[in-house]
C-alpha cells in the first residue's frame, strides 16, 4: 500500500530509506506478519526452487546424459513444490474461510500421502 518511489532505493547505506520501495515493504510485512510455521514451509519452498533451478542449469549447460535421472530429480523438485504450496495454502489460518471442509490436519495428511507416492515414482524413474 506504500506509494512506489520513482527514484528507486537510496544509495546511502548508513541511513534508513525515508520511503521504502514496494519490494522492501512487502518483505518487511512478510517477515513481521507471517507465522513461524508458514515461514518454515516457505523456506522449504525456496529450497525446492533453488534445487530445481540448479538441476535444470546443469542439464542445459553440461549434459542431459542420464536423462531419466534428470527427469526424476527435476520432477521431484517440481512435484514436491506443488504439494508443499498446496499444503501452505490450506494450513494458512487466513484462508480458513476458503477451506471450511479441509482441516489443516487433513491437509497435512494429504501432503504426506502425496509426498510418499511422489517419492515412489521418483525412485522408480531414478534408476
Amino acid at each position: 500500500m506504500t506509494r512506489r518511489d520513482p527514484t528507486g532505493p537510496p544509495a546511502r547505506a548508513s541511513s534508513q530509506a525515508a520511503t521504502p520501495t514496494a519490494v522492501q515493504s512487502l518483505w518487511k510485512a512478510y517477515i513481521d506478519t507471517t507465522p513461524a510455521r508458514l515461514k518454515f514451509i516457505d523456506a522449504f519452498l525456496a529450497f525446492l526452487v533453488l534445487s530445481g533451478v540448479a538441476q535444470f542449469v546443469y542439464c542445459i549447460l553440461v549434459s542431459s546424459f542420464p536423462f531419466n535421472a534428470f527427469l526424476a530429480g527435476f520432477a521431484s523438485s517440481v512435484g514436491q513444490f506443488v504439494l508443499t504450496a498446496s499444503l501452505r495454502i490450506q494450513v494458512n489460518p487466513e484462508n480458513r474461510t476458503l477451506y471450511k471442509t479441509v482441516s489443516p490436519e487433513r491437509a497435512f495428511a494429504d501432503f504426506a500421502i502425496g509426498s510418499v507416492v511422489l517419492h515412489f515414482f521418483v525412485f522408480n524413474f531414478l534408476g
Partner: protein
Amino acid sequence: MLHLPSLSLPLLAAVAAQAAQLALQAPRVTVAAVDGSQLLSEQIPLGHALPAPVALGPKDSLKLTFQVVQSGSQEPVQPHQTFIHFYDETTGEEGVQPVKVNANGKAKFELNMARPPSSLPPTGDTPLKVSLFLGSFVHDPAKYDLFDLAIPGSAPVAQHPEAELFRPRAAIYHTFRPEPKIPPVAISGIFTCAVLAPWLALLGLWAAVRPTVPHLFSPNILSFSMSLAGMEGLLLWYWFELRLGQVLLYGALMAIPTFFTGKSALASIAARRLGQK
C-alpha cells in the same frame, strides 16, 4: 521266441514275391520323321536299356509300345499305375507321364516333338533317361530302364517377374548415435556442490525461522513421524535393492501402522488446536 516270426517274414515275402511279379513283353520304340519315314525302330532288350541314345529332331515323333504281363504265367495284366519317367541326371530335372494300359495289358505312348507334352522336363545337353514305372496293388512294383532320349534343348526358363525381390539385397550398415560421454570430473564436482548447496540454504533458513514444535516428541506424534520415516526408508531401500513387488507389499504393510498413528497424531493436534481456540 522272438526270432521265429522275424525269420518267417522274409520267407513269406519270398513266397509272395514269387507269386506276383510283373514283366514287360515286346517293348519297342519307333522314331518317325515329319514326312512319315521311319528313322529308328528297335526292340528294347529285356533287363537293360538300349545302348545308344535315341535322337529326336525338333519335328520327329516317338512311339513306344509294350505289353505288361505277369512273369511266369505270361498272363496280361493291367497295372493300376503306369508312368514313363524322364530324368536329367546333370540338372536333376524330371518329368512323369502317365500311360494308359488296356485291359489286355497293351500300352502305346506317343511323343511328338512339334507339340511336346508338358511332362517333359527342361533339358540341356545331356540325354534324358527314360524309364517305365509299374505299380499295382497285387503285384510287386517294377521299374524298367528303357532308353536315353536326346531331344533339342529347351528354351531357358523365364524369370518370374518378382524373382528380383527375393534375391539377397545389399548388406545394411547401421550408424548408431555415439555413446554419451560423461562430463569431466571437475565439472561434475562443481555441479554436485551447486545442487547440494540449496540444502545448506534450507538449513540456514530453518535455523533463522525456528518454528516452535512443542509436542514433537510426544508418543502420538513421534510414532507418526517414525512411521513416515519408515515409509521413506522403504523407498530408499527400494532404490538400492528391492524389487517392485516387494516394495509394494512392504509399503502396503507399512501403510497400516502409518495410517493409524497418523489418525491418532493428527486427531490429537486438532484437539489441541480446537481446545486452545
